[in-house]
Each structure stands twice: as C-alpha cells, then as structure tokens.
C-alpha cells in the first residue's frame, strides 16, 4: 500500500504516488531552471505542464487510477531532460568545446599531503597518488634527489584552484556538464563530512 498525493497539472487533477510526485517535482524544477533565462519562461512552463497532463491522462484509466514513477520516467524521456533539450537547442554545441580542452599538470590542493605535487601528477596520469609518492620516496633515499625534484615541482607547478582547472588537471573536457558535476560532487563530499 502506498501514499498518494493529489496534484493539479495543466488544469487536470491526478492521483500520483508519493515517489512519482517527488520525481515529477524535481523534473519540473529542473526545467524551470533551464528555461529561466528565456523571456516568457512562465508561458513555456505552462505549455509543458499542459503537455505533461496530456501524456499522463493517456496513461490513466479505470484500471489504473494512479500515476506511478514509471509514468513519470516515460514522460521525462518523451519531453527530454534539460540536458537533452539544450543539446538539441544548441545542436550538440557543448560537446564541440571538448576538442579544445587542455590537459596539464596542476598541484591538487584537495588530495595533497604536503604540496599536492604527487596527487596532481597522479591526476594527470590517472593513477593512484601513492604510486607517485613511492617513486619520490625511492628517489629521495640515495641522496635526497627526490626531495629536490619535489621542491622544484612545488614551486613550478600551479595549484588547481578553480573548478575548471581541477577538471583540466584530470584531462576531462571543460564544459557546463562537467563543471556542474564537479560542483555537485564537491557539494556531496562536504555534506557527507558534515553529517559525520
């Protein structure tokens, strides 16, 4: 047995499962955010809600009286996520920026033990930072050469401060999707740390 919510969308009333309601609400908010920069964004949202109501109405009947989460997923796949829409609106433009992405060595301030030199180089090669640290330690044993190299690199390599630089450090293309994902990831990490 589930809890249902009554909603009114596009002027039509529906019963909708609680989880489907949350998903639909999240989807509508994401669309609202996407269209916020358009003039008449309210009108666009109203038209979309009308269409969603049409699509949902077609899936409801005597035997199925409640909108479920699979209905909402179906609607989202028909109308498109904000990413799908902006890809079509821009003709896949975001992906084209990727061909001019840089891939360079930065010092990684988030994963550092001393100066972020080893973690930065590890990010560039996409290997575990400890591999690089062990190499430096081994190089330091005979006469401290590793320490010298480390200090030189510490001075020479820039720190990855902005989100875009952190993405370049890993060699991923810098575009809105990746920046958004990076920020989300960092947000989740902060949230996790605060809960503990």
């Amino acid at each position, binding site marked *: 047995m589930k809890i249902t919510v009554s909603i009114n969308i596009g002027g039509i009333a529906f019963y909708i499962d609680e989880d489907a309601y949350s998903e639909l609400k999240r989807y509508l908010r994401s669309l609202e955010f996407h*269209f916020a920069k358009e003039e*008449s964004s309210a009108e666009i949202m109203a038209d979309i809600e009308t269409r969603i109501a049409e699509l949902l109405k077609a899936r409801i009947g005597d035997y199925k009286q409640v909108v479920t989460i699979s209905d909402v997923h179906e609607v989202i796949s028909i109308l*498109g996520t904000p990413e799908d829409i902006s*890809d079509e609106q821009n003709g896949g433009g975001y992906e084209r920026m990727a061909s001019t992405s840089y891939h360079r060595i930065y010092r990684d301030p988030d994963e550092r033990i001393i100066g972020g030199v080893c973690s930065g180089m590890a990010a560039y090669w996409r290997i575990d930072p400890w591999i690089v640290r062990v190499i430096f330690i081994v190089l330091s044993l005979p006469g401290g050469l590793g320490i010298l190299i480390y200090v030189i690199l510490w001075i020479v390599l820039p720190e990855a401060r902005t989100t875009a630089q952190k993405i370049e450090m890993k060699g991923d293309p810098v575009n809105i999707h990746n920046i958004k994902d990076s920020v989300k990831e960092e947000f989740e990490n902060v949230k996790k740390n605060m809960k503990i």
Partner: protein
Amino acid sequence: MNVENTKAQMRKGILEYCILSVISGNSCYASDIINRLKEARVIVVEGTLYPLLTRQKNAGLLSYRWEESQQGPPRKYYELTDQGREYLADLDKSWDELVESIKLIRKK
C-alpha cells in the same frame, strides 16, 4: 569533430522553418506539431519545441486562440500571422537556394 554534432547542428538550423511550415499547412495544436516533427525525425525530445513556439509567437510570426476541449482544459490552437506567412515564404526560397547550392557542390 563528431558527425552526430554536425547532424544535430543541421537539424537545429531547420527546426524553426519546419515549425512554421507545419502550421502553415493546417492550423493546429502543439501536440499535432510535435507528431509531425517526430514523424519527419526533425525533433527528438518534445521539450525543444516549446521555447521555439513561444519565441515565434513573441516575434509575431504565430498567433493562437484557445479552443475548448471535452477531454479537459482549453488548448492553444496555432496559426500563422501574415508576417509569419511572409517569413515562411522567405525561408522556402532560402531553402530552395540551399538545395541548389548543394546540388552544385555535389556535382563532381
């Protein structure tokens, strides 16, 4: 370079033209426009249509009236304005010219 992106760019370029063309044939509802565009495979997700429709209406190319419906709330019924018809005629000409250009280029 990605062929899918180039193709998407091509489709994006003709979408506004297609919308005007569909409405000129027969005044219609947004859902009719969507079905025609999907049949012709010019649009993949429906969400792309709505900002374009609104922009065209705001530019005076389209107008709509509310039509009552037995199944629910009233729906927008779109048609081209005179300005929209002129605009479409211009785009028709432009399209024909493009087709000619491509023909010339493809001739080896």
